[in-house]
């Protein structure tokens, strides 16, 4: 029997606001525990919450970008449970009337577009952090994170494969980054994912037992956990076993999911509208105000790169995966209109440098090791024949971390391409004169010898000779 998997993902995205959702504490964690807390986020007696306007705006941005229905009146609700990192004994979240419902995200995978529907997007506050004490008999609580604003984004169980889940997450993350709403860092916890997985015989409609997977701290973990869990579920059912609806944790170390120890999974959260907060009324004017400056979203930008710059879908994908990369690319193209070459330099050499420096997962670079303008001018110099491709690599490396323009470097290091025909000819003549045997080889049909000659000529000219010209004249001279 063939089974298909049914996957829904629940994402919690930490918002890039300056202050927390219900108080004026900073969202930038201090190094010292409990240094970014106040009586409000620490759940002291007598305190009251006041909603951060920007959190609502970010929720609206995300909702509009995902084509959701925006609730004209929505309610903040209390989710009640006891835990040391939950200072009030309840989390302020949204339950019956969330700010956004419905919506979808279009995900591209293997050249096809899949529409993944959303159930809802709502606002809520984050909890603090529990750390296990070195002594083992206690736990330590840091409330710096308590009250940091989150958006919870829930997808319908529309995903059918692990690869789809990964692609959906990446697309969603890129969207949130583009909107400036979340920096999407899974490793640091600003972008978290829980998965709901079930399997069913292929072709059937009824959903199988839904199992929740938590503790997924990277894209790789999401995909590995899903692979494992789907296989586990199929195996269990194929062996005639039964699946229990439960929450399982992904064990990164042992690469398996295992049931959560605590039976708290059967929570009765006793949701009710928070009487300390007023109904949130969102009118057309506010929506229009948020909608107007929405940035071009990843999918749209990618399509435009393909159409406007003639890039391949693959390259366009790489260049729009991060908003800052796309911005960098376009800044360069504006300075010198060779998108293909610039694309290659960025995706090849520049990405390599970012990876070496471990900047590739940082997701938004405030300072690039090489200014876009300088890269553009370098490519311009190649196109103008002032330097050749190989020399350009030297220029590229020299420009990293320096503020020097390519012109400065070329001039300082005397790297200007040799296009003076006289000098080139002289160099060619010199090399030919010194290598008569190879001339014979070439003339008897060995094309590869040309490479040897070119190499020698480049050596003789410190690599600066214009390769096309060298080739041209060399071939001419080698004619019998």
């Amino acid at each position, binding site marked *: 029997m063939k089974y298909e998997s049914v996957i829904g993902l629940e994402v919690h995205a930490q918002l890039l606001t300056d202050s927390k959702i219900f108080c*004026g504490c900073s969202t930038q964690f201090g190094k*010292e525990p*409990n240094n970014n807390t106040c009586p409000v986020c620490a759940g002291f007696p007598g305190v009251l919450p006041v909603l951060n306007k920007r959190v609502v705006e970010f929720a609206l941005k995300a909702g509009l970008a995902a084509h959701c229905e925006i609730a004209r009146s929505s309610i903040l609700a209390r989710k009640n449970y006891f835990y040391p990192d939950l200072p009030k004994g309840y989390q302020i979240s949204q339950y019956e009337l969330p700010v956004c419902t419905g919506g979808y995200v279009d995900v591209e995978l293997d050249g096809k577009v899949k529409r993944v529907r959303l159930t809802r997007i709502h606002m809520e506050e984050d909890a603090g952090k529990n750390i296990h004490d070195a002594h*083992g008999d*206690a736990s330590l*609580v*840091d409330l710096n994170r308590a009250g940091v604003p989150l958006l919870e984004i829930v997808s319908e169980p529309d995903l059918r494969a692990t690869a789809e889940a990964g692609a959906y997450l990446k697309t969603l993350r890129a969207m949130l980054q583009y909107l400036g709403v979340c920096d999407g860092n899974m490793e640091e916890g600003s972008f978290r994912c829980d998965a709901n997985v079930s399997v069913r015989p292929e072709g059937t409609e009824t959903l199988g037992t839904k199992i929740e997977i938590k503790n997924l701290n990277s894209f790789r973990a999401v995909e590995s956990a899903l692979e494992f869990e789907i296989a586990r579920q199929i195996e269990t059912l194929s062996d005639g076993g039964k699946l229990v609806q439960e929450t399982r944790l992904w064990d990164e170390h042992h690469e398996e999911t295992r049931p959560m120890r*605590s039976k708290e999974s059967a929570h009765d959260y006793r949701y009710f509208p928070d009487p300390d907060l007023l109904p949130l009324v969102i009118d057309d004017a506010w929506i229009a105000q948020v909608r107007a400056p929405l940035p071009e979203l990843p999918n749209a930008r990618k399509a435009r790169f393909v159409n406007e710059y003639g890039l391949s879908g693959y390259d366009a994908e790489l260049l729009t995966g991060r908003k800052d990369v796309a911005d960098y690319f376009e800044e360069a193209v504006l300075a010198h209109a060779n998108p293909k070459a610039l694309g290659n330099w960025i995706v090849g050499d520049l990405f390599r440098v970012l990876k070496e420096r471990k900047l590739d997962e940082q997701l938004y670079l405030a300072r690039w090791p090489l200014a876009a303008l300088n890269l553009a001018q370098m490519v311009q110099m190649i196109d103008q024949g002032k330097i050749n491709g190989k020399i350009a690599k030297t220029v590229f490396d020299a420009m990293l971390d320096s503020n020097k323009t390519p012109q400065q470097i070329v001039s300082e290091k005397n790297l200007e391409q040799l296009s003076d025909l006289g000098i080139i000819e002289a160099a060619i003549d010199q090399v030919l004169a010194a290598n008569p045997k190879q001339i014979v080889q070439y003339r008897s049909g060995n094309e590869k010898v040309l490479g040897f000659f070119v190499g020698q000529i480049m050596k003789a000219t410190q690599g600066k000779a214009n390769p096309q010209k060298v080739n041209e004249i060399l071939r001419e001279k080698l004619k019998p």
Partner: protein
Amino acid sequence: MKLSREEVQRVAVLARLRLTPEEQSSLTEELDRILGYMDKLNQLDTTDVDLFSHTANITNTLREDQVTNRPNADALLANAPDRDGTFFKVPKIIE
């Protein structure tokens, strides 16, 4: 009898209240009577009645996204039953 002892115990656990057996008995009886009194409300037909939305006749009190609090971990920890540096120290949490 609307309320059973088991139900009362379940609610006590939800509310994190330890009850002695005597308290369990007396609470079961008291809550049962009080809840019985609440049945009065079923005399009313509320099918077309709006849910009470809020006592304050206003909507949308929002604040600007500004950092207005100054860090002061010590003030916050001054009443802590137990602490470790600037952490709150609590009984071990088992995941």
